[in-house]
């Protein structure tokens, strides 16, 4: 490793530290499953029910984000900071711009695939999530490559399920003809979302368990 690469590696250490306790993945898992839950509620309830109102959706998202944010802060304060230390991250505009650009490119790619009549745009979710996860998380922790493999195989398998099977697995497939999404595509996306969220949650849970068993708050002494 050259001195410059060494410095770069030190500079990236704090970013990796955010997921040292698995909370980064748990947060993502809860968010993805949260969106999945409201999507299922919309599928399972009549078209004019409470769950289809836009303000309910917005309130649900706001509450979910608040619970994730407060929950993360609570756990970090009680568990992570006393064990391995406190970090306050820099608020960089560049990071937000990258996230917004990433979201916009993904949405555009999804729209193009839909417009082209691609039968399984759900595969795109895997194609976006797997490399992002590999780059963001697995690079730093060797066993997370196993999670990358699980995500890659799982998302690919779900994206290639026969359309008839996907539709038969959805409790109320009559919902989809009313919506703008083809039933097989919407069904695939829901199952993919559920699989990805659950994988993040399990992977984060294992990391948290390992973190708790391998670390303990040091005795307080003069620093």
């Amino acid at each position, binding site marked *: 490793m050259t001195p410059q690469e060494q410095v770069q590696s*030190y500079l990236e250490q704090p970013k990796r*530290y955010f997921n040292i306790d698995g909370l980064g993945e748990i947060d993502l898992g809860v968010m993805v499953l949260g969106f999945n839950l409201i999507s299922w509620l919309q599928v399972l309830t009549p078209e004019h029910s409470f769950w289809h109102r836009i303000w309910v959706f917005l309130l649900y998202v706001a509450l979910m984000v608040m619970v994730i944010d407060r929950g993360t802060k609570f756990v970090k304060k009680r568990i992570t900071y006393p064990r391995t*230390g*406190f970090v*306050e991250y820099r608020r960089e505009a560049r990071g937000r711009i990258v996230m917004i650009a990433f979201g916009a490119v993904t949405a555009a790619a999804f729209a193009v695939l839909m417009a082209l009549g691609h039968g399984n745009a759900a595969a795109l979710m895997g194609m976006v999530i797997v490399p992002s996860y590999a780059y963001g998380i697995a690079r730093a922790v060797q066993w997370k490559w196993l999670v990358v493999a699980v995500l890659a195989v799982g998302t690919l398998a779900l994206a290639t399920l026969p359309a008839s099977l996907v539709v038969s697995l959805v409790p109320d497939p009559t919902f989809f003809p009313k919506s703008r999404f083809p039933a097989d595509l919407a069904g695939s996306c829901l199952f993919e979302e559920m699989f990805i969220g659950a994988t993040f949650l399990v992977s984060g849970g294992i990391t948290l368990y390992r973190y708790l068993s391998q670390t303990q708050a040091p005795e307080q002494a003069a620093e």
Partner: protein
Amino acid sequence: MNDSIRNISELDRVIHEPGRLMIASLLFAVEQADFLYLQHETAMNKGTLSSHLSRLEEAGYVEIAKTFRGKIPQTLLRLTPAGRQAFESYRRNLKAAL
């Protein structure tokens, strides 16, 4: 003296020491962090870490604040603007030297 050697001689000695380089890099990437975090990430013992931090503080590169987290004492550390500038110029000189 060629440019490469001149760039090496211009490297900031305070930051160039491996332990302090690690500390400065870690602090450069964050707003602030506590002593325990640096100890965990650098795997240095308290004495060594304290000594490096004192050297960086003397140079005006690190600001050290003693506070409390509840009833537990906490030492918060951050790079000063001079420290950030020195680290950036160290990276530039290192890049030019190699």
